[in-house]
Each structure stands twice: as C-alpha cells, then as structure tokens.
C-alpha cells in the first residue's frame, strides 16, 4: 500500500517535529531516504536545494514533490495532507484547551526537549550531505562551493535563492 506508506512517512515527522518546517526536514529524510529508500542522499539534497530556492513552506514542497515522485498526483495529495492536516485539525479542535495551557511549563518543555534531538539529526544530515558532496563533486569543489556559500549566506546575507542559482551555474560550467 504505497499511499499508506506515504501517509506514514509524512504523518510521523510532522506530528513529532517541533520547531516549524525546517525541523521536520531531517525527520523526513530519515523516512524517505533511510527507511523507505524512495530517494538516495543525492536526490534528497537536490530536492532540498530547489525547495530552498523557492518561496512558500519547505515541508509541504518536499511532501508534494516526494509524493508525486513516488505515486503521482494521488501520492502528492496524500503526502501533503499528512503534512498539513493533523496539526491543523489539532489546532482547530483544541484551541480552547491549548489557550489555557500554552503558558504551562509542561507545554513549553515539550518543544524545548525535542530541540536537542532535532539538532543532532540536523548535524547528521549536514554530515551526510558532506560525504555525498565528496563522492559526487569531489573534495576540492565541495570545499570551494561550501566556503563560497557559507561566506555569501552568513557574511553577506545573500538570498538563498541566489546562492543556489550561483551554485547551479558553477556546476553547469565546472562540473559538467
């Protein structure tokens, strides 16, 4: 049942992922690349790159594309619904309850305690992109592009879309 698998692959990350869309990325990677093997690390990195270059929420863009890639339009629909619906329904259904408890230390603690786990998964994903870069682009290009991107993003606050575009041009010319 591919639809059921797709549903689970996106439902689980989104129901445990605190910290907005970006926090969900490493959890989705664990399902899509690690568990179900629908994509390899390289394809996932490419999808994420394009996702980062386009506007609108990242979690739904990833869900839409992976769902489509795995099972067509129906797959995209299932993956996006699994991403959006659960937390939205919770919010609509339990707003009153949540309103009373949103200042409660227990509720605050929930997102705080999850953060270190997300952090380590993000670190792991960074590492896996690094080793993917080594095998596909090679050490020299990985360091060159990585340093260039870091300087542009952190030092000059260049728009991510422009950095991705610059990397695409670089790759088309020097790695082709």
């Amino acid at each position, binding site marked *: 049942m591919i639809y059921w698998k797709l549903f689970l692959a996106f439902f689980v990350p*989104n129901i*445990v*992922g605190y910290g*907005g*869309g*970006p926090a*969900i*990325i490493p959890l989705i990677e664990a399902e899509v690349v690690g568990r179900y093997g629908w994509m390899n690390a390289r394809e996932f*990195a*490419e999808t*994420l*790159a394009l996702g*980062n270059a386009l*506007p*609108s*929420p*990242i979690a*739904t*863009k990833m869900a*839409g*594309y992976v769902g489509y*890639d795995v099972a067509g339009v129906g797959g995209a629909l299932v993956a*996006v619904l699994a991403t*959006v619906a*659960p*937390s*939205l329904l*919770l*919010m609509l259904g339990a*707003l009153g309850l949540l*309103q009373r408890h*949103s200042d409660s*230390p*227990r509720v605050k*603690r*929930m*997102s705080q*305690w*999850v*953060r270190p*786990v997300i952090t*380590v998964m*993000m670190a792991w994903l*960074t590492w896996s*992109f690094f080793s993917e*870069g080594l095998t*596909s*682009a090679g050490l020299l*290009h990985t360091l060159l*592009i990585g340093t260039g*991107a870091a300087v542009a*993003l952190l030092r000059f606050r260049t*728009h991510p879309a422009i*950095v991705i575009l610059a*990397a*695409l041009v670089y*790759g*088309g010319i020097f*790695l*082709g």
Partner: protein
Amino acid sequence: MTPHDKATLSALFWTFTRVGLFGFGGGPSMIPLVQQEVVKRHAWLSDEQFADILAIANTLPGPIATKMPGYIGYRVAGASGCVLAVVAVILPMIVAMIALLTVFSRYRDVGWIQGMGQAVVPVVMVMMAQLTLDFWHKSRLALGWIASLAMALAAGVLIYAAGLHPGLIIGALLLAALLRPARRHKGATP
C-alpha cells in the same frame, strides 16, 4: 454563498497566495509576512490575537506556515476559508517543484545538468549546518549546554547506532515533558 462571503474568500485566497510567493526561507521566516497581511492590511485579527494564536500554534508540532493560514482562514470564513488559505500558500510552489524537478530528472544524464545537481549539494550542506547551529543555539539557551549536549548525544546514539526510530525517541520525550511534574526540570533524557 452571499457576495460578501465571496469577497472574503477571494481576499483570503490572494492574501495567502502573496504570502506563499514572497515567503522565502521556510515557514518560521514567513510569519512576519502573515502578520503584515492579516493584522495590518486586512485587520482580520488584532496584534494581541495574532500573538496569542502564534504562541498556541508553536505548542503544536508540524509546519507553522500552514497552521497559521489554516486557522486564520477558518476564523475568517469557516471550513472553505481554511482549505482555501492553505491551498493558496502551498499549491503554486508544489506545482513549480514538480515541474522543475521532473524536467531536471529527465535530463539527468546530460553532463552539465548533472554538474548542476552535484554543485548544489555543498550548498544545502551549508544551509543544514546553519540550521543545526541555530537549533543548537536555541536549545542551549533553553536547557543549558550540558543538558543539550547530553540529550543530543544520547539521541544520536539511540538513532544512529542503535537504529531506533527518531519518532519513538521524540514521542517518549514529549510524553515525559507532559507527564513529569512541573516543579523543576532537569535536562537529562528520561
């Protein structure tokens, strides 16, 4: 449907289409844009209401940039408003993703296209490193660096060495955070 409803729905649709098209950098960075449209431009919510709803949305998991439009859409125009607002935020760029990546995979074997794919990997590596630092920083501020590091290391070992599903670990932490008495909290893994 009265003309008034229709006008509201179309306002919702265009508002959140704009948010979707101009919101770069993932959900959390889109929130100021949502606030600008919803509070300042349309006055659907007051500043305090918006802040309240945002605080509540943050206590729930899942992407923030769909919870807010969905809830605001529901509040302004009921269930159809909810669906419309969410679709307006996410649909255009999902279609763009699918179109661009489908073309890309079709010509994957062409040398220079392959080169383009290889060159973006180090960039997402840097972006992911940036997110890692950002989450580490927030975690350190909330829990202190010793507890954060201990939890991160423990989670890393459980997930990557023991092969436990990350959802299981996060689920256990959420449950512990909710059930443990609220007096004073230690940061160690339960």
